[in-house]
């Protein structure tokens, strides 16, 4: 009998205990995997190459201020800028105020927007229909599916920031990977309804022709407006989004705190189980030693058991995390959870490594005690 099969048999000898421990560990690992995935999607994942060439130009002080329309042509004149589109946050209500009915509603220029957002794929005939209808809307396919919208459907966005309701007709549906929770409409339509907004835009998105020009162009744009009444802040799209994430609070500390609690819980649960396991087999260990098993092999036997439990729990946890994250991205839309979030191979590997390490560490002390036990005491033990 090899050490491996010995470990496996012993692990499942007390089935109830092993199963309970594994389930307990798997839920903790599920949480750990969730946290790792959120962390990665916020801070690690790289954006698509087009997006890294996209700059966001906004008022230096606050997004609450609009930029004048003539800024657009000035930005266009900067070397390396291939397209510029205005964007304005409408922030209207659809159905009601509940967070699950929140989605981004942005006014833009249909003629140029898709040159900036080249990662959005729209059928040419739909794009044309959107450009021709001033009250038309372009929506993400995921959003359209959520509300059952089809081309030609009419929807109303209720007033909030702007003192007008918007009656829109769905004219085009776009695909994007990862999906996005957004609707775009013609900003001209809003300008007609709200006279004081005429000739302004919330911010501009500019496409730069090569990655090497991004940093130079962004400095050039800010320098150009340095002495204007409204100074600008130009940053990459990713930095712009991270700004929103940062405003939610100290997310990093929050995630690390939860991870810490989870890791510690797993240690306790796993160490607890191993202690119970060692205790119930005191005599057995003494017998093994009498037969000639060394301390080392007794130690590795128990540590192996602990690792087997932790890793099985870990695999289960990662497997549960896949559907849970899928559900989260679809049901908590609007809470700032990126739709693109999923369990990637590196995230899974990290969780499994964590469970392996935890199994090793938590199993060591009980296993060490077992290996050090004197044979005579062990045989005398009444368990």
């Amino acid at each position, binding site marked *: 009998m090899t050490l491996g099969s010995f470990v496996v048999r012993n692990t499942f000898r007390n089935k109830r205990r092993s199963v309970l*421990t594994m389930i307990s560990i798997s839920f*903790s690992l599920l949480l750990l995997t969730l946290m790792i995935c959120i962390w990665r999607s916020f801070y690690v994942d790289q954006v698509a190459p087009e997006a890294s060439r996209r700059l966001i130009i906004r008022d230096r002080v606050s997004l609450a201020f609009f930029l004048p329309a003539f800024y657009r042509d000035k930005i266009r004149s900067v070397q390396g800028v291939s397209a510029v589109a205005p964007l304005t946050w409408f922030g209207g209500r659809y159905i009601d105020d509940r967070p699950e009915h929140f989605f981004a509603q942005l006014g833009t220029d249909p003629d140029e927007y898709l040159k900036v957002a080249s990662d959005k794929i729209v059928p040419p005939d739909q794009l044309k229909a959107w450009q021709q209808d001033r009250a038309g809307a372009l929506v993400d396919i995921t959003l359209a599916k959520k509300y059952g919208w089809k081309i030609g459907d009419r929807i109303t966005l209720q007033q*909030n920031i702007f003192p007008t309701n918007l009656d829109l007709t769905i004219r085009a549906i776009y695909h994007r990977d990862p999906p996005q929770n957004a609707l775009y409409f013609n900003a001209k339509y809003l300008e007609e309804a709200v006279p004081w907004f005429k000739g302004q835009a919330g911010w501009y998105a500019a496409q730069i022709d090569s990655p090497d020009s991004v940093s130079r162009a962004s400095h050039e744009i800010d320098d150009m407006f340095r002495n204007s009444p409204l100074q600008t*802040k130009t940053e990459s799209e990713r930095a712009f989004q991270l700004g929103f994430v940062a*405003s939610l609070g100290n997310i990093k500390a929050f995630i690390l705190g939860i991870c810490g609690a989870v890791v*510690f819980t797993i240690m306790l649960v796993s160490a607890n189980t191993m202690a119970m396991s060692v205790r119930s087999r005191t005599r057995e260990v003494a017998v093994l030693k009498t037969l000639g098993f060394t301390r080392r092999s007794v130690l590795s036997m128990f540590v192996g058991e602990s690792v087997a439990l932790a890793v099985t729990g870990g695999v289960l946890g990662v497997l549960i995390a896949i559907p849970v994250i899928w559900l989260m991205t679809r049901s908590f839309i609007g809470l700032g959870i990126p739709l693109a979030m999923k369990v990637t191979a590196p995230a899974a590997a990290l969780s499994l490594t964590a469970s392996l390490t935890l199994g090793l560490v938590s199993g060591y002390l009980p296993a060490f005690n077992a290996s050090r036990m004197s044979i005579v005491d062990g045989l005398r033990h009444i368990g």
Partner: protein
Amino acid sequence: MAIPISYNVRNLVLRKGLTLMTALGIALTVTTAIFLMALITGLNTAFVSSGNPLNVLVLRKGSEAELSGGFDASLYPTLKTLPGIAKDSHGEPMTSGEWVVVIILPRKDGTGEVNVTVRGMMPDGLELRPGAKLVEGRWFQTGQREVVVSRSIRDRFSHANIGDTMEFGKGSWKVVGVFDAGGSAYESEVWGDVNQMASDFDRQGGYSSAYLRATDPISAEALKNRVSDDQRLKLEGVLETDYYAKQTSSGAPIKVIGIVVAFIMAIGSIFAAMNTMYAAVAYRGREIATLRVIGFSRPAILTSFVLESLLLALLGAAAGILLMLPFNGMETGTSNAVTFSEVVFALRITWTVAAYAIAFALIMGFVGGLAPAWHAARQNILNALRG
């Protein structure tokens, strides 16, 4: 007859290691739950304590926040002469036309920039908010480029001490005072003179909002309706308390994340508790059988083991609360969903939070203990005695 609780207590003490580890596991879950509840409680307290029930806030019709409001200054004199407004210390109607903007400030700890609300107000603005107390320096003066900052703004952002200058609008502003707003939403604001602010942001001739102080609660209600019903004004009156109560929705993301995290951790803890209780039952097979022989009934055994599990959970809850107490009052910030600016609030571990934490732990203990206790009660006496 019931088995005395001291039997369970002694058993828990006897197997200290196991008891301690399981209780600690429960404690960690409770800690996480307390932390999230304290966050939400603190946030709600900040909003609920902000409003004065006698203050009527006037906004443009259809807008939900001061930031998205904005109306013509020519309407202000009409508001000032409405009946039911209390008199200020100079015998004038206590009203303030205000201008609210959001600016960017760098965090002191270097973790990026945050939106902060800047409020330009008339001199009555300070009288309208008696909750805000000056703790250092002096209030800003009308006609001067001066600002006062809240205590937590000073602590959390650079360039916000007395004597420093803050850069926003068309130039620099001198910080002349620090105020304490008693944990309300004003705790996240910078205040200055309304005319100075409006001219810096090219918004002369308009106000974001106006505040009116009513003489009593009944006239506050009447004042609110009068503003909203006047067709010429196209304005809307809301009680300040209602306005802030609505902003508690800012806590929604924390709430959802909190529930998910606490739920998952609770499941993990329940299984861990179950494990411990099964082990307890297994070790005491003979003992349980003996108890049965002496005459204790099956329900008594069941109750006893469930009680033991509840005790274990209670121990965990106590440890969790103790672990979290040092964090009580810790200040943090999140984004206000209505104003898009930072709202600063303190973690609050209230009695309600503690009670919820204990209830949460007891539920874990109960669910985790039920199956093992059932198992104990169902044991066959003869087999167990022989075992």
